[in-house]
């Protein structure tokens, strides 16, 4: 299978005012590379400040990298192409409830996504929305609901619907499973696995829960202070962690 996403030596640093004249460089990401094939899951693990979220932001084009490049299906990606490739990479945030507009009906929200990024007419849009809702186990009339009328698990499904309606190839889940209750989380995990098998979606899972990561992911990338300290298939990394930090992480989760 071909590589869907290839990241080569990506670096990013922020500078911060220090004193009157001095500036301090904060290195958020230092020389990180990895590849992700179609239909696979890569988990990114690390503590806060390790650069996980910076990496996600670079991938969707919210921030610009200092060095390195991102190749999507062999093509280098530039920020100016954002509109072209937001069909391919979609992003899900941690708190579904807070990332949806409370004054907009779900159907309207999904239609906006289609209006901005596709050339479908109204008929086709409506069909597409119904189809996507069905795919995620929601009903047609849910399109007329406001976000507060949903429960936590359903909201997560709505957020997924917004991401999946453009038929992406890669989905970035930024701590999207962390805040869910255990039985709901199991439901969403099952849904994600099923979608992956059906349509060959690739996931980039940013998470702190190693047990879940172990179950869901094919390969794993451990970030520590902006550097990638361990990278390999999940089974390998768990069996023989190379870096001290990874070892500590695995021990602390009892994994």
């Amino acid at each position, binding site marked *: 299978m071909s590589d869907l996403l290839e990241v080569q030596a990506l670096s990013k640093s922020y500078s911060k005012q220090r004193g009157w004249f001095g500036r301090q460089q904060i290195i958020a990401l230092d020389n990180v590379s990895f590849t992700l094939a179609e239909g696979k899951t890569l988990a990114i693990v690390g*503590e*806060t400040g390790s650069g996980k979220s910076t990496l996600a932001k670079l991938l969707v084009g919210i921030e610009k990298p200092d060095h390195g490049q991102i190749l999507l299906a062999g093509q280098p990606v530039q920020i100016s192409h954002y509109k072209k490739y937001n069909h391919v990479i979609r992003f899900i945030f941690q708190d579904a409830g807070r990332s949806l507009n409370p004054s907009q009906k779900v159907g309207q929200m999904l239609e906006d996504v289609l209006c901005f990024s596709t050339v479908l007419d109204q008929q086709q849009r409506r069909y597409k929305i119904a189809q996507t809702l069905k795919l995620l186990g929601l009903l047609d009339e849910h399109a007329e609901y406001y976000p507060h009328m949903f*429960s*936590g*698990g*359903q909201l997560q499904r709505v957020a997924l619907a917004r991401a999946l309606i453009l038929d992406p190839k890669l989905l970035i889940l930024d701590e999207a499973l962390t805040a869910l*209750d*255990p*039985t*709901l*989380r*199991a*439901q969403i*995990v*099952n849904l994600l*696995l*099923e979608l992956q098998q059906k349509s060959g979606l690739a996931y980039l899972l940013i998470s*702190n*829960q*190693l*047990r*879940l990561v*172990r*179950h*869901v992911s*094919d390969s794993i990338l451990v970030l520590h202070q902006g550097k990638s300290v361990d990278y390999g298939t*999940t*089974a390998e990394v768990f069996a023989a962690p190379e870096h001290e930090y990874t070892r*500590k*992480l695995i*021990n*602390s*989760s*009892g*994994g």
Partner: protein
Amino acid sequence: MLLLDIKNLTIELETADGLVRAVDRVSLSLREGETRGLVGESGSGKSLIAKAIVGVLNSRWLVTADRFHWLGKDLLRLTPEQRRQVIGRDIAMIYQEPSRSLDPTAVIGEQLEEAIPDHLLTGPWWRRNALRRKKAIGLLHKVGVREHQRVLQSYPYQLSEGICQKVMIAMAIAKNPKLLIADEPTTALESTTQAQLFRLLASFNQLKGMSILLISHELESVARYTQKLSVLYCGQLVEAGETNQVLQTPLHPYTDALIKSVPEFQPDLAPKTPLYALPGSIPTLQHVPIGCRLGPRCPNARKECVKTPALERQQSHYFSCHFPLTTKGK
């Protein structure tokens, strides 16, 4: 000796649509030196129970119980003033988000010193301030904060979430409480800090015989650090007993589903296979089903389940289900 003995605790809220029963006849008991886990999903009433114990629910909530004893005294019969004295002396609580529960306008040192009661300071009055400061530093060392000078002079926003939580714990143990209630103490923290905090709590339990009520929605971490376990679903107590026993032979279908949905408890589950999940979602409190509240989601629900099952016991293992999973071949 029973420290806390609660029988049939019911907490109701008066709303425009009538009484909403958020916690439905929950029994809970805690011995001296015991650690008990209270597990349930969001909206299951875990935090309400904790708040009812320390008496910080406002007057809109109706709290009734057949028995609500703390060291043999019925807390619900005491006047608020007396009750405050008892709780202020014996029970401490740690809240979910430490950086939000600390006072943002005062430095940590001030807040921590305020939490130290006068009767623990032995010395003439003119040395009180120095003793207080010394005790505060000692408390910080106890919870594993080494650079006490910097922390004492910082405001909460200047510290990381983990340090804030440690400060909260230091404030809670300042008065040597008999019971420490930890309400989701680790949700905001990293996994490495989480393990650290649980070890800290466990060490207080072992060294000082402090009882701990650990409230969480993560079964796996609770199971590792507690002796007893109570499982709540939607305000009803579904199962209680020794942690090991509950985990090995769950009798209630909900507990069973909870255990099966966590990959850690399923070592032979191949990666990328579907997890066991109950259908549907947690009902809202306005629309709870009658009888057993798990009813509509339960895989083996039958006609009898519209009546609330009574709490039954098998030795020290309590459960409330008409059709317990006893005949399961394992």
